[in-house]
């Protein structure tokens, strides 16, 4: 676990986390702090509780229970002592701290006109540890190349939460920007200009505008910017050849992605979904697929600590979706290369 992350915790929690076994700290993925409830950690696919002496225990009854004071201090540190500066983030339920670690929050919401205005009495924290895995896209990237245009295909990375989407996206952006295509045919292509819209500050983990992660030499990052607006801004102002965005799915995202497409910019994006059927059950994604927005779909699955990926071309995506949907209807899916429509 990075040292800076430990500094987030008040002394009582920090002491216990520091006493966890070294190997476990290295594979730590999330830390869950709940007021007056057992302290939990998630690592390498598993989860367990932390005892009062910093030991691992499977029984929740003997686990350490963070006090109200612990949680208050943690919230203060997580918001950099400035709750007023993260009001917007609180409304969305998470904040991102230096290092790109995302902290999900739950508590009591304050409503205004039926919408969440504020989050108070924050009592649950989910600290997700961000890690750069350089080279994790090395086996995937060769499958996403478009040899004619000498760049990457329009790609949608699909997986359930916690399978390593963002980590993969980060390394894809770095490889494309650095020109590490890992393909003999592409050895002389060079890097591409990459623009990243980092709405949750997770991909780049910018600190005062400068990315904390290595994203390659030709990458521009628009930090903490709503995706739809950010995509348009990047296309207009930074002339990217590839734009990268995390977790698309809102109607305005689709509009911006189409704009990028028509501007001749390649798009690499991720979406929360379990499989392709799930993707096409979401109206926005289904519409984009039907328009032939994406040239390749990447499905991630993880068992143990190993992330596996499978690339499905737009041509096969429809058959794949139909297969898993059984007799249910499947929308039309087109590939960017074909002109005519195919019907389900």
């Amino acid at each position, binding site marked *: 676990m990075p040292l800076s992350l430990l*500094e987030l*915790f*008040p*002394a009582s929690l*920090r002491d216990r986390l520091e006493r966890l076994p070294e190997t476990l700290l290295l594979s730590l993925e999330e830390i869950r702090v709940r007021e007056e409830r057992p302290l939990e950690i998630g690592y390498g696919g598993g989860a367990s509780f932390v005892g009062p002496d910093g030991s691992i225990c499977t029984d929740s009854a003997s686990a350490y229970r963070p006090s109200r004071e612990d949680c*208050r*201090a943690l919230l*203060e*540190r997580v*918001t*950099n*002592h*400035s*709750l*007023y*500066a993260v*009001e917007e983030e609180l409304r969305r339920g998470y904040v991102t701290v230096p290092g790109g670690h995302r902290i999900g929050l739950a508590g009591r919401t304050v409503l205004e006109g039926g919408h969440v205005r*504020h989050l108070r009495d924050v009592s649950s924290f989910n600290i997700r540890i961000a890690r750069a895995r350089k080279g994790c896209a090395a086996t995937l990237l060769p499958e996403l190349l478009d040899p004619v245009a000498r760049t990457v295909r329009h790609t949608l990375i699909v997986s359930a939460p916690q399978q390593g989407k963002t980590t993969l996206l980060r390394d894809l952006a770095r490889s494309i920007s650095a020109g590490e295509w890992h393909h003999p045919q592409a050895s002389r292509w060079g890097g591409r200009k990459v623009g990243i819209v980092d709405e949750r500050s997770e991909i780049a983990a910018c600190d005062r505008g400068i990315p904390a992660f290595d994203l390659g030499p030709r990458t521009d990052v628009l930090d903490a910017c709503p995706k739809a607006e950010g995509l348009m801004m990047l296309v207009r102002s930074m002339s990217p050849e590839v734009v990268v965005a995390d977790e698309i799915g809102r109607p305005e995202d689709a509009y911006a992605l189409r704009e990028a497409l028509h501007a001749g910019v390649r798009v690499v994006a991720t979406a929360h979904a379990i499989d392709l059927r799930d993707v096409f059950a979401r109206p926005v994604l289904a519409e984009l697929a039907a328009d032939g927005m994406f040239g390749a779909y990447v499905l991630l699955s993880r068992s143990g600590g190993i992330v596996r990926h499978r690339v499905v071309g737009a041509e096969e995506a429809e058959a794949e979706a139909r297969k898993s949907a059984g007799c249910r209807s499947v929308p039309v899916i087109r590939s960017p290369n074909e002109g005519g429509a195919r019907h389900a």
Partner: protein
Amino acid sequence: MLKLVGAALILFAGTMIGFVQAARFAQRPRQIRQLIHALQRLETEIGYGQTPLPDALARIASALTAPVSSLFAETSARLASGSGETVRDCWERAVRAGWPATSMREPERDTLLRLGETLGGSGASDQLKHLKLAAHQLQAEEQAAREDQRRYEKLCRSLGVLTAALVVILMM
């Protein structure tokens, strides 16, 4: 001869004590004014800039003069140190440590300590309310301090000289 030197020394010391006391009366309203300005700056940093508290306090400290600046600089340094202390603790320690160096009194200190309990812990609009309230209370204290200054500044000076003179006369 020796007596004369002693008398001169006493006279000098008495005058100095009077002047120092008078200076405290003169400095108090000035320092309170500085505090009010600092809080107004903090309002801007929080309301418009949404600057994180440690940065905002450091910026404010750099625009002030000692000893008032030390209250903000110390809090900011403590917050940035990564020790895990809360704003309330950092603020209270900084105020208690830096207070003897200032000419201000207890009412101002209590106002600041009360402010420290809420600083950074709520939304922008709420923060602004607390800051306004604190500035308001400080303004009242400033009024009182000016009144005191008007009444006691000259008095302290003359009292110092006169007391020294009295001692000298009694000695002679």
